[in-house]
């Protein structure tokens, strides 16, 4: 049976891709952000996951408003990174794991989660930037795991509730643990957040106090966070801070017993309060 090693969260700001390309690791603006990753790199090197479940939110590349799935799971042999409209260079395709994808889809639909399966899914910065941060040189890192992307809708309300996101993760956990490949090692990513708002007269809004509350509780008390309503999440985390839902989905997949390995929090990167967290599952 498969094993879930742990979960890693990170912000997925497009500007990070640019900073990586220009190798701005020691630039005074970027250093406090990039300093959050060496411990993650070491953990990945020590544990060498075979599969990475990348939970992110599409930003208008893979999906348009004509058909907007609440929860979509990739089931492709590979995932192409395409132009999002800014003309930035695209990365090479990421190798998929369709047998694991279909196992998850079968298991979660049987568990009464209604999933949209995607045999083609172009992936944007929400998926790609975390891969670059965790596996430098991705997708050509020598230990690059095969991937299953999972995208949740935060583009258009109604978005899922925090409780639904956590429950989704718990159902995903059951699916992963029952994957019949012997000794398969899996890591789960939750990408996006933390507080930020891009649109309206309130653009630029960041809420350190609320982010710290979320960071504190998500480690050992994620159910507490399900009391936050979606509108409260918009109000306190900003219109795009709703990406915290991905963190909740990731957290649900880890089970109750986790150990915090590292954490980083920095304001601002681009318009965002950037957060990184690595949680290891009990053996």
């Amino acid at each position, binding site marked *: 049976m498969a094993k879930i090693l742990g979960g890693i969260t990170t912000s997925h700001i497009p*500007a990070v891709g640019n900073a990586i390309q220009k190798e701005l690791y020691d630039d005074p603006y970027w250093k406090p952000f990039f300093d959050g990753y060496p411990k993650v790199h070491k953990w990945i090197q020590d544990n060498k996951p075979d599969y990475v479940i990348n939970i992110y939110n599409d*930003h*208008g*590349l893979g999906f*348009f*408003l*004509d058909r907007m799935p609440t929860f979509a799971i990739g089931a492709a042999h590979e995932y192409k990174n*395409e*132009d*999002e*409209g*800014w*003309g930035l260079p695209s990365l090479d395709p990421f190798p998929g794991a369709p047998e694991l994808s279909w196992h998850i889809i079968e298991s979660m639909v049987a568990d009464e989660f209604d999933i949209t399966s995607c045999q083609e899914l172009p992936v944007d910065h929400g998926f790609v930037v975390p891969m670059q941060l965790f596996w430098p040189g991705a997708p050509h890192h020598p230990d690059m795991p095969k991937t299953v992307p999972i995208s949740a809708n935060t*583009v*258009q*309300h*109604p978005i899922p509730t925090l409780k639904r996101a956590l429950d989704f993760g718990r159902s995903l956990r059951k699916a992963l643990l029952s994957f019949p490949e012997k000794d398969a090692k899996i890591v789960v990513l939750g990408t996006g957040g933390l507080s930020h*708002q*891009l*649109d*309206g*007269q*309130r*653009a*630029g*809004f*960041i*809420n*350190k106090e609320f982010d710290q509350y979320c960071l504190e509780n998500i480690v050992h008390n994620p159910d507490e966070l399900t009391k936050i*309503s*979606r*509108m409260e999440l*918009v*109000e306190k985390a900003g*219109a*795009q801070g709703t990406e915290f839902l991905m963190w909740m989905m990731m957290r649900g997949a880890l089970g109750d017993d986790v150990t915090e390995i590292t954490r980083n929090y*920095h*304001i*601002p990167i*681009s*318009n965002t*309060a950037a957060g990184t967290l690595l949680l290891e599952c009990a053996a």
Partner: protein
Amino acid sequence: MADMPAFDYHIDIPGTTIFDGKQAMKGYALNKMCYSFNKAENREAFKADEEAFMEKYGLNDQQKQAIRDRNVLGLIEAGGNIYYLAKFAGIFGLSVQDVGGLQTGRSTEEFKDYLKSQA
């Protein structure tokens, strides 16, 4: 469409437009045009003839005027979703700090200072 006050989403958050079904219906043509800007050929076609491109996507007068004026708040008012509008802003090489400044009456530098002030 009538308001639906019983719903969770019907609360007022100053300076924030909840992009819900109502906005999604209002802004569909505008957002569809901006979604097309994912492809370089569509960005080029827009730059070559903005009016014809807007006509092709069926934008209404309010949306067309906001596009002509590069009025980000006006585009949101007309049903634009920021994730698609970001692709429109990208045509002009604007960063999200530029767009933030435009919406809040700040210069880009002032907007960056505001972000830092919340650390």
